[in-house]
């Protein structure tokens, strides 16, 4: 799936006086992609989103969003017309109803009365809030408010959606609704830039992940990030691991081999080619194979290792 980049950042930098919040960020996000930015608190994720949304200025580097540079009044207005932002705080007008909140933003985005009416109905129905459209959002639960905030960011049908911690502080059920909704948006072809602390969420939603701590430490698909850090490994469970089995595996070539009770962890380069050889060697050495599986370290372990190593 090759698309033109929706976001291109080249050495994007933001300093606050002497403190560098974002340091020479270089990456691109393709159209239709869900890109996740991970990092500890204070890593510069929100600052990055704010620069790309033209909310704050950059102090160095270049970036384009939907082909427009993120500097200059005319360009920034054009960018803001094309994007939607779900900020880390819902930031709704609590006295106004869900309908009025969305209608106000629809007007700011130059939607016609018909577009606003249809858009509001569509999104509130999709997010199961249509029956509560006239209730002041101050009376809503956190999850309901977050849904309204998402609908607000989509009311003008943006090509690119920035989401800053969209499921933070939500209960598991509301978080799942939001995640499913994000996947539905991807199916509709929207490009999504997602800041999150939730590594499981990032693994499930994102096509690619960037890990940052002021600088960009790593960027790749979740699977390739894990493979790059841990290598590919096969887990083989036997009834018992003998010295003979170990020796026969070592005879296949130099490789990382770990024994943990009756389980073997073997590093492989090409699992489809090497796994049958491993099993054959074990059987030839008198071993009895119970399970063979691909070992996938959690993204959390990968993330922690990358962040700690770079620190």
């Amino acid at each position, binding site marked *: 799936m090759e698309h033109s980049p929706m976001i291109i950042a080249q050495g994007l930098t933001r300093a606050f006086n002497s403190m560098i919040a974002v340091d020479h960020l270089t990456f691109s996000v393709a159209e239709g992609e869900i890109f996740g930015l991970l990092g500890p608190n204070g890593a510069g994720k929100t600052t990055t989103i704010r620069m790309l949304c033209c909310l704050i200025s950059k102090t160095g580097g270049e970036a384009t969003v939907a082909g427009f540079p993120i500097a200059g009044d005319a360009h920034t207005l054009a960018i803001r017309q094309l994007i939607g932002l779900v*900020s880390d705080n*819902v*930031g*709704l*007008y609590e*006295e106004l109803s869900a309908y009025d909140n969305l209608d106000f933003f629809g007007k*700011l985005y130059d939607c016609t009365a018909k577009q606003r009416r249809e858009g509001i109905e569509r999104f509130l129905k999709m997010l199961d809030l249509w029956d509560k459209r006239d209730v002041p959002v101050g009376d809503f639960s956190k999850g309901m408010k977050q849904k309204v905030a998402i609908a607000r960011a989509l009311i003008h049908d943006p090509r690119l959606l920035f989401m800053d911690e969209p499921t933070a502080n939500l209960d598991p059920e509301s978080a799942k609704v939001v995640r499913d909704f994000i996947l539905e948006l991807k199916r509709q072809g929207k490009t999504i830039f997602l800041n999150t602390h939730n590594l499981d969420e990032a693994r499930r939603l994102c096509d690619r992940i960037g890990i940052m701590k002021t600088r960009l430490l790593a960027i790749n698909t979740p699977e390739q990030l894990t493979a790059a850090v841990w290598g590919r490994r096969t887990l083989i469970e036997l009834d018992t691991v003998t010295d003979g089995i170990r020796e026969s595996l070592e005879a296949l070539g130099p490789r990382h081999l770990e024994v943990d009770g009756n389980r073997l962890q073997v590093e492989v380069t090409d699992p489809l080619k090497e796994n049958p050889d491993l099993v054959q060697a074990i059987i030839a050495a008198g071993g009895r194979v119970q399970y063979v599986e691909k070992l996938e370290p959690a993204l959390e372990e990968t993330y922690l290792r990358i962040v700690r190593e770079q620190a």
Partner: protein
Amino acid sequence: MRLAKAWTVTAKDFKTFTKRRTIVYYLIWFELIVSIAMPLIVRFAERRSKDPAVVLPRVISAFSLWFFIGAAVLPVSIASYSLVGEKVQKSLEPLLAAPVSDDDILVGKGLAALLPTLVATYCGTVVLMILIDLFSVGRLGYRNYPNWTIGVILLLLVPLAALFSVGFNVLISARTNDVRSAQQLGSLPIIPLAGLYVLTEIGVITLSVTNLLVVAAVLAAADVVTIAAALRAFRRDAILTSWR
């Protein structure tokens, strides 16, 4: 600056104010008290004074200043809810992310504070003028209103004072995080205006048209400085990085 966008912001603020009854009551009660209590004092003075032809014009003239003071007081409540309220609700970021310029937002918010103030002030003044004329015409032998003094106050001083108050409140909003503090600090411009009222009451200053035009010129200069500072303070980069 695009007026249609600014007006969208103003209309949203009006809608919010109608849900916040305290703002509506504040506007109504202030004007009711001033426009009814002042004529009642005139009525009292007219009956008790031995020399009403001297006392009444001075009292009536000084009362006119209350609308000038009111024009500085009323936007405080509205502007503080409008700006600090957005900060408290954290709704500024989504608003700033929309395709509106900083000036669109600032003008929209300024209009939301100015228009109700001017409408309430002018309505209150009409009531005051009718009642004072009603109570004083018998003793004075002439109708006090309309006159040039109230004309200058309403057409020049009231809008200039309201504008100053709005600009001052934008600056205050950059430094405060709760509505009450913003209202307290935003009320500071009332002090010099109250001083002017006292000086008028004790006869140090007369409210001649010339004197009022001098006050208007000083206020206009203060407006230029305050609005320029407000425009500088209300920049999205500063709002998201420097505002407390």
